[in-house]
């Protein structure tokens, strides 16, 4: 294989995963939090694909494909929820969704 070794891909994936996690923990807009979750899933996908290449087995790629579908599903439900909240007139701010507490 030419170009950078698998390790480099993995580093990128790790950075992406970290960035996504940061977004979830930092941002207040549920939309951006959802986007950050997508980042995390994609980081995992990159890892899977990189390892698939490393081991020369396609299992990782298949797994990644399935994850894409799952990610799409999560987005669908997340967005549905956000829309429902918006219709219900609830603030789109995760910090304000804290009436359940204690």
């Amino acid at each position, binding site marked *: 294989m030419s170009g950078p070794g698998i390790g480099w891909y993995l580093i990128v994936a790790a950075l992406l995963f970290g960035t996504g996690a940061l977004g979830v923990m930092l941002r*207040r807009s549920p939309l951006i939090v959802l986007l950050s979750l997508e980042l995390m899933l994609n980081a995992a996908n990159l890892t899977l694909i990189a390892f698939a290449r490393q081991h020369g087995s396609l299992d990782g790629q298949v797994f990644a494909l399935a994850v894409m579908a799952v990610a799409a599903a999560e987005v669908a439900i997340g967005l549905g929820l956000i829309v429902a909240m918006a219709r219900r007139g609830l603030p789109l701010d995760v910090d304000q969704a804290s009436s359940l507490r204690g």
Partner: protein
Amino acid sequence: MVAGAWFCLLAPLAGALAITLAGERISRRQAGLVSTLTTFAAFGGALVAFVAMWAREGAEREQLSTAYTWLAAGDFEVGLQILVDPLSAVMMLVVSGVGGLIVWYSLGYMAGDDEERRYFAYMSLFVFSMLLLVEAGNLLLLLVGWGLVGLASYLLIGFWHHRPEAVAAAKKAFVMNAIGDATFALGLVLLVWQARTLELPAVLEEADGLSGTIVTLVALGLLGGALAKSAQLPLHTWLPDAMEGPTPVSALIHAATMVTAGVYLLVRAHPIFEAAPDVQHLAAGLGAATLLLAGLVALVQWDIKRVIAYSTMSQIGYMFLAAGIGAYGFAIFHLVTHAFFKALLFLAAGVVIHHLAGEQDIRRMGGLRAALPRTHVAFLVGTAALVGLPPLAGFWSKDAILASALASGGALGWTLFSAGLLGALLTGAYAFRLYYAVFHGAPPEVSPEPHGPEAAHEPAHGEGPLSMLVPVGALTVLSTLGGLLSVPGVWHPFTHWVSETAEALVEPSTGEDYLTSLVAVTLGLAGLWLARRAFASGRQLVTSPVAWRALEHKLYFDELYDALFYRPAAALAGALRREVEEPVVERSLDELGAGTLELGGGVARVQSGLLRTYALAVALAVFVLVLVFVAVR
């Protein structure tokens, strides 16, 4: 013989049960009759036993009879058993005989009290308990009787339970006796461990084989019980207060029988005390000390019954002295004569009190010779017997004790002898002070209103009904003649009889006897003279105000015990309650609970409802988990 003894024991119990169970179905008078008859029945049983024993010889006179195993644990067994031997036979006769007379007397004395039934039930219970004490075939059963007489004493002292003084006195008597019971029990525990049995002849035979320390401890334990029961120093303070009870009770329990149980124990368990001579001498010494102390205090008392009570303490001191030097026969002899004349004194005093509607203060008495001529005679006989004037009962028994002290010799013997003689002087003084104050001089100016503990009685009964007079008469006779059972140099049937159970350690010679009598009677008469002179001149016997106050306060024993024991215990209990129970034991859980709840509140606050913190927690936890996993590898 054994059947008589069993009958003697159970008859009063049956009486007590019958009265209790019958309740209001029988009249008060019937209750009294039941009690009297059963007590005399017991006396009959005792007589049967005595006569049967008389017919036997030597070892045959001692018999142990077991009904059933009362208590058993492992290989340790205690039977419900009685020991019939010369000593217990004498005691049975005295207890049931004197008891019967006094219960009979009560019929008249208590007439009109609205709780007569209860009174007679208690009296019967007492007679049963006392008989159990003297007949017990093992030491544990003896302790049972010991405790039950204490119970009966408590009940009867506190008979007039609406009076705070009576209740307090009853409690005091019970607690003091409980202390004695406890040391008694401790002594028995030691015996159980050493001898594995408490059966009377057997355990006493083992006494010699025990180590010195053990036997001393056992003896101390028993002595503790005896001191408490017989109101000897230092456990004597309850007896004067016990006079709160009805007078026949004082006569029966606190003069004739129960309080002398300590002497009985000393004699009964004499092998143990002989194996621990120090303890035996201690008993003699304490007896001597008590007889002096009580004699002194009696000089200043105003209450007719209290004077007699102190004289009782003093006389029991003589008995302890006797038992302590090994003159067992004379100890028991004095016990018996004392039972006669002291019961007589109390009953006579009862007549006086009855007559005066409950008055007990001798300052409000006087000149009763005219109003109560027969009682006067009886009282005089009793007093003279108490002082030990010949030929009355007390003369023979007391002088025999003093002679024994003289005969035992040594520093101890001489000390005891001197103390006894001094006691004789004191006895003469206080006894005749009382006699003069009550029967001589001018009658009090005002006719007394009913008051005092026995205020229930209507005034001016005169000498009371026949049921009161006959027992007094009988006791007068006994007090006069009772001493003739042992005349020095002539015959000693009584001491001989007792010595089959308890061989005396000292035997005074006839010369010692007569010498002692001479001195003692002289001193007694000197006391009489002192009392008469003081009475005639209207002065008191004790003139020093300091001494007067000290004696009036009974030498401050009550105050001392209060400060030494009761108040510290009460303070300790209060302190435990305030400092340990409430703050530590009860609240520790509260604090722990509050702390936990606070923690729970903290946990709930962390659960802030902020979604981002939830993610943060997950992230941090993952970080730690991975870190640990990779690092531990």
